[in-house]
Protein backbone atom coordinates (compact mmCIF):
# COMPACT_ATOMS: atom_id res chain seq x y z
CA UNK A 1 0.00 0.00 0.00
CA UNK A 2 1.39 3.37 -1.08
CA UNK A 3 1.82 6.20 1.44
CA UNK A 4 -0.33 9.29 1.83
CA UNK A 5 0.63 12.02 -0.67
CA UNK A 6 2.58 15.13 0.16
CA UNK A 7 1.39 18.48 -1.11
CA UNK A 8 3.98 18.27 -3.85
CA UNK A 9 2.71 14.85 -4.89
CA UNK A 10 -0.86 16.10 -5.01
CA UNK A 11 0.25 19.06 -7.11
CA UNK A 12 2.13 16.72 -9.45
CA UNK A 13 -0.94 14.51 -9.83
CA UNK A 14 -3.07 17.51 -10.74
CA UNK A 15 -0.45 18.74 -13.21
CA UNK A 16 -0.53 15.33 -14.92
CA UNK A 17 -4.30 15.59 -15.34
CA UNK A 18 -4.20 19.01 -17.01
CA UNK A 19 -4.29 18.53 -20.79
CA UNK A 20 -1.49 20.13 -22.80
CA UNK A 21 -2.38 23.58 -24.07
CA UNK A 22 -5.02 24.21 -21.41
CA UNK A 23 -5.82 27.65 -20.04
CA UNK A 24 -5.62 27.29 -16.28
CA UNK A 25 -6.19 29.39 -13.19
CA UNK A 26 -4.42 28.28 -10.03
CA UNK A 27 -6.02 29.58 -6.85
CA UNK A 28 -4.11 31.30 -4.08
CA UNK A 29 -2.17 29.03 -1.71
CA UNK A 30 -1.44 25.36 -2.32
CA UNK A 31 -2.84 25.27 -5.88
CA UNK A 32 0.03 27.51 -7.02
CA UNK A 33 2.32 24.52 -6.44
CA UNK A 34 0.78 22.90 -9.52
CA UNK A 35 2.70 25.30 -11.75
CA UNK A 36 6.01 23.78 -10.68
CA UNK A 37 4.91 20.36 -11.93
CA UNK A 38 3.67 21.28 -15.39
CA UNK A 39 6.07 19.63 -17.84
CA UNK A 40 8.16 21.93 -20.05
CA UNK A 41 6.48 22.34 -23.40
CA UNK A 42 3.04 21.51 -22.01
CA UNK A 43 1.77 24.74 -23.53
CA UNK A 44 -0.40 25.32 -20.45
CA UNK A 45 -1.19 29.03 -20.18
CA UNK A 46 -1.78 30.43 -16.71
CA UNK A 47 -4.47 33.02 -16.07
CA UNK A 48 -4.40 35.31 -13.08
CA UNK A 49 -7.73 36.97 -12.38
CA UNK A 50 -6.19 40.35 -11.61
CA UNK A 51 -5.66 40.68 -15.34
CA UNK A 52 -3.16 38.56 -17.23
CA UNK A 53 -2.84 35.47 -19.38
CA UNK A 54 0.63 33.96 -19.73
CA UNK A 55 1.75 34.38 -16.16
CA UNK A 56 5.25 33.08 -15.46
CA UNK A 57 6.92 32.01 -12.20
CA UNK A 58 7.23 34.26 -9.17
CA UNK A 59 9.75 37.06 -9.66
CA UNK A 60 12.98 36.38 -7.78
CA UNK A 61 14.01 39.97 -7.41
CA UNK A 62 17.48 39.54 -8.85
CA UNK A 63 19.17 42.03 -11.15
CA UNK A 64 17.83 40.26 -14.26
CA UNK A 65 14.40 39.84 -12.79
CA UNK A 66 13.49 42.88 -10.67
CA UNK A 67 10.40 42.86 -8.52
CA UNK A 68 7.74 44.95 -10.25
CA UNK A 69 4.88 46.16 -8.03
CA UNK A 70 2.77 46.56 -11.19
CA UNK A 71 3.09 42.85 -12.06
CA UNK A 72 1.56 40.64 -9.41
CA UNK A 73 -0.60 37.55 -9.19
CA UNK A 74 -3.96 37.17 -7.47
CA UNK A 75 -2.13 36.70 -4.17
CA UNK A 76 -0.42 40.08 -4.72
CA UNK A 77 2.97 38.34 -5.08
CA UNK A 78 5.33 39.78 -7.74
CA UNK A 79 5.43 37.44 -10.74
CA UNK A 80 6.79 37.38 -14.26
CA UNK A 81 5.13 37.44 -17.67
CA UNK A 82 5.98 34.85 -20.32
CA UNK A 83 6.28 35.59 -24.04
CA UNK A 84 2.78 35.60 -25.52
CA UNK A 85 1.26 37.14 -22.40
CA UNK A 86 -1.56 39.68 -22.50
CA UNK A 87 -2.97 42.16 -19.99
CA UNK A 88 -6.63 43.10 -19.62
CA UNK A 89 -8.88 44.88 -17.16
CA UNK A 90 -11.01 43.30 -14.46
CA UNK A 91 -14.30 43.21 -16.35
CA UNK A 92 -12.57 41.49 -19.26
CA UNK A 93 -10.70 39.13 -16.96
CA UNK A 94 -13.85 37.98 -15.20
CA UNK A 95 -15.80 37.83 -18.46
CA UNK A 96 -13.14 35.34 -19.56
CA UNK A 97 -13.75 33.26 -16.43
CA UNK A 98 -17.52 33.56 -16.23
CA UNK A 99 -17.88 32.89 -19.93
CA UNK A 100 -16.37 29.43 -19.56
CA UNK A 101 -13.18 30.05 -21.49
CA UNK A 102 -10.78 28.62 -18.90
CA UNK A 103 -10.28 24.89 -19.16
CA UNK A 104 -9.28 24.16 -15.59
CA UNK A 105 -9.28 25.98 -12.31
CA UNK A 106 -7.57 24.53 -9.23
CA UNK A 107 -8.86 25.73 -5.86
CA UNK A 108 -8.38 24.99 -2.20
CA UNK A 109 -11.39 24.18 -0.02
CA UNK A 110 -12.72 23.95 3.51
CA UNK A 111 -15.35 21.47 2.36
CA UNK A 112 -16.48 19.76 -0.84
CA UNK A 113 -19.78 17.90 -1.01
CA UNK A 114 -20.31 14.61 -2.80
CA UNK A 115 -22.36 16.53 -5.39
CA UNK A 116 -19.52 18.96 -6.03
CA UNK A 117 -20.67 21.89 -3.92
CA UNK A 118 -17.71 23.97 -2.79
CA UNK A 119 -17.12 25.89 0.45
CA UNK A 120 -13.80 27.70 0.48
CA UNK A 121 -14.28 31.36 1.39
CA UNK A 122 -15.68 31.64 4.87
CA UNK A 123 -15.64 29.50 7.95
CA UNK A 124 -18.90 31.02 9.06
CA UNK A 125 -17.47 31.92 12.45
CA UNK A 126 -19.36 34.93 13.77
CA UNK A 127 -16.27 37.06 14.41
CA UNK A 128 -14.54 36.23 11.11
CA UNK A 129 -14.20 39.07 8.61
CA UNK A 130 -15.59 37.67 5.37
CA UNK A 131 -13.55 37.98 2.16
CA UNK A 132 -14.40 36.29 -1.11
CA UNK A 133 -12.24 37.78 -3.86
CA UNK A 134 -12.59 35.86 -7.11
CA UNK A 135 -13.44 32.51 -5.50
CA UNK A 136 -17.11 32.47 -6.49
CA UNK A 137 -16.33 33.59 -10.02
CA UNK A 138 -13.65 30.93 -10.41
CA UNK A 139 -15.87 28.24 -8.94
CA UNK A 140 -18.61 28.64 -11.54
CA UNK A 141 -16.50 29.78 -14.48
CA UNK A 142 -13.98 27.18 -15.50
CA UNK A 143 -14.96 24.13 -17.59
CA UNK A 144 -13.48 21.92 -14.87
CA UNK A 145 -12.84 22.81 -11.24
CA UNK A 146 -10.27 20.70 -9.43
CA UNK A 147 -9.98 20.98 -5.67
CA UNK A 148 -6.71 20.39 -3.84
CA UNK A 149 -6.90 19.86 -0.06
CA UNK A 150 -6.26 17.45 2.78
CA UNK A 151 -9.10 14.99 3.10
CA UNK A 152 -9.48 15.58 6.84
CA UNK A 153 -9.18 18.72 8.93
CA UNK A 154 -6.60 18.86 11.71
CA UNK A 155 -9.22 17.67 14.17
CA UNK A 156 -9.99 14.64 12.00
CA UNK A 157 -13.28 15.98 10.61
CA UNK A 158 -13.90 14.93 6.97
CA UNK A 159 -13.72 17.74 4.42
CA UNK A 160 -15.49 15.63 1.78
CA UNK A 161 -19.03 15.72 3.15
CA UNK A 162 -22.60 14.75 2.25
CA UNK A 163 -23.60 18.42 2.53
CA UNK A 164 -21.39 21.43 3.17
CA UNK A 165 -21.94 23.07 6.52
CA UNK A 166 -19.72 26.05 5.78
CA UNK A 167 -21.11 28.90 3.65
CA UNK A 168 -21.05 27.88 -0.01
CA UNK A 169 -18.80 29.28 -2.73
CA UNK A 170 -20.61 27.54 -5.58
CA UNK A 171 -23.17 24.84 -6.23
CA UNK A 172 -22.20 21.58 -7.99
CA UNK A 173 -19.12 23.18 -9.50
CA UNK A 174 -16.29 20.81 -8.46
CA UNK A 175 -15.54 17.92 -10.78
CA UNK A 176 -12.49 16.38 -9.16
CA UNK A 177 -11.02 16.32 -5.69
CA UNK A 178 -7.31 15.67 -5.09
CA UNK A 179 -6.30 14.97 -1.50
CA UNK A 180 -3.45 13.44 0.45
CA UNK A 181 -5.34 10.17 0.89
CA UNK A 182 -7.32 9.84 -2.32
CA UNK A 183 -8.52 11.29 -5.60
CA UNK A 184 -12.27 11.45 -6.20
CA UNK A 185 -14.73 12.42 -8.86
CA UNK A 186 -17.67 14.38 -7.49
CA UNK A 187 -20.78 15.78 -9.11
CA UNK A 188 -24.46 15.26 -9.78
CA UNK A 189 -23.95 11.48 -9.75
CA UNK A 190 -22.30 11.56 -6.32
CA UNK A 191 -18.75 10.73 -5.35
CA UNK A 192 -16.54 8.09 -6.93
CA UNK A 193 -13.17 7.03 -5.53
CA UNK A 194 -10.54 6.99 -8.25
CA UNK A 195 -7.39 6.16 -6.29
CA UNK A 196 -6.37 5.80 -2.64
CA UNK A 197 -2.99 6.50 -1.04
CA UNK A 198 -1.94 4.97 2.28
CA UNK A 199 -5.48 3.81 2.96
CA UNK A 200 -8.21 1.63 1.50
CA UNK A 201 -11.68 2.09 0.09
CA UNK A 202 -13.18 0.47 3.17
CA UNK A 203 -11.24 2.66 5.55
CA UNK A 204 -12.19 5.77 3.61
CA UNK A 205 -15.85 4.79 3.43
CA UNK A 206 -15.89 4.34 7.16
CA UNK A 207 -14.04 7.52 8.05
CA UNK A 208 -16.01 9.67 5.56
CA UNK A 209 -19.38 8.05 6.16
CA UNK A 210 -20.35 8.34 2.51
CA UNK A 211 -20.86 5.83 -0.30
CA UNK A 212 -17.76 6.04 -2.52
CA UNK A 213 -19.45 4.83 -5.70
Amino acid sequence: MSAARTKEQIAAAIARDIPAGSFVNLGIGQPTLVADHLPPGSGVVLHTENGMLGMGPAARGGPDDPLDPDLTNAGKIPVTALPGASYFHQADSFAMMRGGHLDVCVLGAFQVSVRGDLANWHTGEPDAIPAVGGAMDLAIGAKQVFVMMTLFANDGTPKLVPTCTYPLTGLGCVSRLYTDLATFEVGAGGVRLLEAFGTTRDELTERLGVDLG
Partner: protein
Amino acid sequence: MVTICDSAAEAVADVADGSTVLVGGFGPAGMPFTLIDALIDQGATDLTVVSNNAGNADVGLAALLAKGRVRKVVCSYPRQVDSWVFDALYREGRIELELVPQGNLAERMRAAGAGIGAFFCPTGVGTPLAEGKETREIDGRTYVLEMPIKGDVALVCAHRADRAGNLVYRRTARNFGPVMATAAATTVVQVSEVVDVGEIDPEVVVTPGIYVDRVVVA
Protein backbone atom coordinates in the same frame (compact mmCIF):
# COMPACT_ATOMS: atom_id res chain seq x y z
CA MET B 1 -13.03 67.67 -21.70
CA VAL B 2 -9.99 66.81 -19.64
CA THR B 3 -8.19 69.18 -17.31
CA ILE B 4 -4.51 68.61 -16.66
CA CYS B 5 -4.23 69.66 -13.03
CA ASP B 6 -1.19 71.19 -11.41
CA SER B 7 -1.74 69.33 -8.18
CA ALA B 8 -3.59 66.38 -6.76
CA ALA B 9 -5.26 68.81 -4.36
CA GLU B 10 -6.82 70.64 -7.31
CA ALA B 11 -7.86 67.33 -8.87
CA VAL B 12 -9.93 66.22 -5.86
CA ALA B 13 -10.98 69.65 -4.58
CA ASP B 14 -14.71 69.18 -5.20
CA VAL B 15 -15.29 65.70 -3.79
CA ALA B 16 -18.39 66.12 -1.62
CA ASP B 17 -19.18 64.57 1.74
CA GLY B 18 -21.28 61.46 1.27
CA SER B 19 -19.84 60.67 -2.16
CA THR B 20 -19.40 57.20 -3.57
CA VAL B 21 -15.73 56.98 -4.53
CA LEU B 22 -14.44 54.23 -6.81
CA VAL B 23 -10.81 53.57 -5.91
CA GLY B 24 -8.66 51.64 -8.38
CA GLY B 25 -6.07 49.05 -7.52
CA PHE B 26 -5.68 45.42 -6.64
CA GLY B 27 -3.80 45.67 -3.41
CA PRO B 28 -1.06 48.24 -4.02
CA ALA B 29 -0.89 47.62 -7.81
CA GLY B 30 -2.80 50.42 -9.48
CA MET B 31 -3.70 52.08 -6.18
CA PRO B 32 -3.88 55.89 -6.70
CA PHE B 33 -1.87 56.75 -3.57
CA THR B 34 -1.29 60.39 -4.41
CA LEU B 35 -4.96 61.07 -5.10
CA ILE B 36 -6.00 59.33 -1.89
CA ASP B 37 -3.51 61.39 0.12
CA ALA B 38 -4.97 64.51 -1.48
CA LEU B 39 -8.48 63.33 -0.62
CA ILE B 40 -7.40 62.86 2.99
CA ASP B 41 -6.11 66.44 3.06
CA GLN B 42 -9.24 67.69 1.30
CA GLY B 43 -11.37 66.37 4.14
CA ALA B 44 -14.42 64.81 2.46
CA THR B 45 -16.12 62.42 4.83
CA ASP B 46 -19.04 59.97 5.14
CA LEU B 47 -17.74 58.35 1.96
CA THR B 48 -18.71 55.05 0.42
CA VAL B 49 -15.60 53.49 -1.08
CA VAL B 50 -15.80 50.87 -3.82
CA SER B 51 -12.49 49.07 -4.24
CA ASN B 52 -11.27 45.51 -4.56
CA ASN B 53 -9.63 45.56 -1.13
CA ALA B 54 -10.10 47.60 2.01
CA GLY B 55 -6.62 49.02 2.30
CA ASN B 56 -3.15 47.68 3.00
CA ALA B 57 -0.84 48.62 5.86
CA ASP B 58 -1.23 52.28 6.89
CA VAL B 59 -1.07 53.94 3.49
CA GLY B 60 -3.47 54.77 0.66
CA LEU B 61 -6.99 53.53 1.23
CA ALA B 62 -6.04 52.30 4.70
CA ALA B 63 -4.98 55.83 5.69
CA LEU B 64 -8.33 57.21 4.47
CA LEU B 65 -10.13 54.59 6.55
CA ALA B 66 -7.97 55.36 9.58
CA LYS B 67 -9.10 58.99 9.44
CA GLY B 68 -12.70 57.87 9.88
CA ARG B 69 -13.80 59.27 6.53
CA VAL B 70 -15.39 56.12 5.18
CA ARG B 71 -18.88 55.04 6.17
CA LYS B 72 -19.04 51.96 3.99
CA VAL B 73 -16.71 49.78 1.94
CA VAL B 74 -17.94 47.82 -1.08
CA CYS B 75 -15.24 45.31 -1.92
CA SER B 76 -14.41 41.68 -2.64
CA TYR B 77 -11.51 41.05 -0.31
CA PRO B 78 -11.17 43.22 2.79
CA ARG B 79 -9.31 40.72 4.97
CA GLN B 80 -5.61 40.58 4.18
CA VAL B 81 -2.48 40.06 6.22
CA ASP B 82 -1.95 43.82 6.36
CA SER B 83 -5.56 45.06 6.54
CA TRP B 84 -5.37 45.89 10.25
CA VAL B 85 -6.97 49.32 9.84
CA PHE B 86 -10.11 47.94 8.23
CA ASP B 87 -10.15 44.90 10.53
CA ALA B 88 -10.21 47.05 13.64
CA LEU B 89 -12.90 49.43 12.32
CA TYR B 90 -15.04 46.48 11.27
CA ARG B 91 -14.75 44.66 14.58
CA GLU B 92 -15.63 47.88 16.38
CA GLY B 93 -18.73 48.25 14.20
CA ARG B 94 -17.48 51.57 12.89
CA ILE B 95 -17.59 50.69 9.20
CA GLU B 96 -20.15 48.98 7.02
CA LEU B 97 -19.12 46.25 4.57
CA GLU B 98 -20.84 45.12 1.38
CA LEU B 99 -18.98 42.06 0.19
CA VAL B 100 -19.20 41.48 -3.58
CA PRO B 101 -17.52 38.71 -5.61
CA GLN B 102 -14.64 40.26 -7.53
CA GLY B 103 -16.09 39.64 -10.98
CA ASN B 104 -19.48 40.98 -9.94
CA LEU B 105 -17.79 44.08 -8.60
CA ALA B 106 -16.15 44.66 -11.99
CA GLU B 107 -19.24 43.76 -14.02
CA ARG B 108 -21.58 45.88 -11.90
CA MET B 109 -19.35 48.91 -12.51
CA ARG B 110 -19.11 48.04 -16.18
CA ALA B 111 -22.93 47.94 -16.29
CA ALA B 112 -23.09 51.40 -14.73
CA GLY B 113 -20.69 52.75 -17.33
CA ALA B 114 -22.38 50.96 -20.20
CA GLY B 115 -25.97 51.98 -19.44
CA ILE B 116 -27.09 48.44 -18.56
CA GLY B 117 -29.93 48.54 -16.02
CA ALA B 118 -29.22 45.16 -14.42
CA PHE B 119 -27.90 41.75 -15.48
CA PHE B 120 -28.40 38.10 -14.68
CA CYS B 121 -25.14 36.66 -13.40
CA PRO B 122 -24.31 33.03 -12.53
CA THR B 123 -21.72 33.97 -9.89
CA GLY B 124 -22.72 33.43 -6.28
CA VAL B 125 -25.93 31.49 -6.96
CA GLY B 126 -26.86 29.47 -3.87
CA THR B 127 -24.37 31.30 -1.65
CA PRO B 128 -24.91 33.76 1.20
CA LEU B 129 -23.84 36.62 -1.09
CA ALA B 130 -26.91 36.05 -3.28
CA GLU B 131 -29.38 35.86 -0.40
CA GLY B 132 -32.40 38.08 -0.90
CA LYS B 133 -31.55 38.72 -4.54
CA GLU B 134 -33.86 37.85 -7.41
CA THR B 135 -32.92 34.68 -9.27
CA ARG B 136 -34.05 33.28 -12.59
CA GLU B 137 -33.44 30.10 -14.55
CA ILE B 138 -32.40 30.79 -18.13
CA ASP B 139 -31.67 27.90 -20.48
CA GLY B 140 -31.36 25.51 -17.57
CA ARG B 141 -28.93 27.56 -15.51
CA THR B 142 -29.73 29.70 -12.48
CA TYR B 143 -28.68 33.36 -12.40
CA VAL B 144 -28.82 36.16 -9.84
CA LEU B 145 -29.94 39.66 -10.80
CA GLU B 146 -27.14 42.14 -10.16
CA MET B 147 -27.47 45.93 -10.19
CA PRO B 148 -25.01 48.55 -11.47
CA ILE B 149 -22.57 50.31 -9.14
CA LYS B 150 -22.13 53.93 -10.11
CA GLY B 151 -19.60 56.29 -8.58
CA ASP B 152 -19.67 60.02 -8.02
CA VAL B 153 -15.91 60.05 -8.39
CA ALA B 154 -13.36 57.50 -9.60
CA LEU B 155 -9.74 57.74 -8.47
CA VAL B 156 -7.57 55.83 -10.90
CA CYS B 157 -3.86 55.24 -11.37
CA ALA B 158 -2.71 54.89 -14.97
CA HIS B 159 0.74 54.89 -16.52
CA ARG B 160 0.59 57.58 -19.17
CA ALA B 161 -1.99 60.09 -20.38
CA ASP B 162 -2.00 62.36 -23.38
CA ARG B 163 -3.41 65.86 -23.10
CA ALA B 164 -6.74 64.59 -24.46
CA GLY B 165 -7.02 62.22 -21.50
CA ASN B 166 -6.36 59.01 -23.39
CA LEU B 167 -4.80 56.50 -21.00
CA VAL B 168 -2.53 53.50 -21.08
CA TYR B 169 -1.80 51.41 -18.01
CA ARG B 170 1.13 49.28 -16.93
CA ARG B 171 0.93 45.47 -16.61
CA THR B 172 -1.49 44.14 -13.99
CA ALA B 173 -1.82 47.62 -12.49
CA ARG B 174 -4.47 48.08 -15.20
CA ASN B 175 -6.96 46.02 -13.13
CA PHE B 176 -10.00 48.13 -12.13
CA GLY B 177 -8.91 51.45 -13.67
CA PRO B 178 -10.54 51.17 -17.10
CA VAL B 179 -13.85 49.96 -15.67
CA MET B 180 -14.02 52.55 -12.89
CA ALA B 181 -13.21 55.33 -15.35
CA THR B 182 -16.45 54.50 -17.19
CA ALA B 183 -18.60 54.18 -14.08
CA ALA B 184 -18.13 57.50 -12.31
CA ALA B 185 -19.61 60.93 -12.94
CA THR B 186 -16.12 62.40 -12.52
CA THR B 187 -12.94 60.45 -13.20
CA VAL B 188 -9.66 61.67 -11.75
CA VAL B 189 -6.45 59.98 -12.85
CA GLN B 190 -2.90 60.06 -11.56
CA VAL B 191 -0.24 59.13 -14.09
CA SER B 192 3.52 58.89 -14.30
CA GLU B 193 3.64 61.21 -17.27
CA VAL B 194 1.51 63.35 -19.54
CA VAL B 195 2.45 63.41 -23.21
CA ASP B 196 1.26 65.52 -26.12
CA VAL B 197 -1.79 64.59 -28.11
CA GLY B 198 -0.74 62.23 -30.87
CA GLU B 199 1.98 60.52 -28.85
CA ILE B 200 -0.21 57.59 -27.87
CA ASP B 201 -1.00 55.27 -30.78
CA PRO B 202 -4.82 55.21 -31.26
CA GLU B 203 -4.62 51.40 -31.50
CA VAL B 204 -3.27 50.99 -27.96
CA VAL B 205 -5.41 53.45 -26.00
CA VAL B 206 -7.06 51.51 -23.16
CA THR B 207 -9.22 54.29 -21.70
CA PRO B 208 -10.36 56.85 -24.29
CA GLY B 209 -10.27 60.45 -23.09
CA ILE B 210 -14.07 60.69 -23.06
CA TYR B 211 -14.00 58.87 -19.73
CA VAL B 212 -11.42 61.13 -18.11
CA ASP B 213 -12.08 64.46 -16.43
CA ARG B 214 -8.85 65.34 -14.61
CA VAL B 215 -5.28 64.17 -14.86
CA VAL B 216 -2.41 64.88 -12.53
CA VAL B 217 1.20 63.74 -12.69
CA ALA B 218 2.18 61.90 -9.50
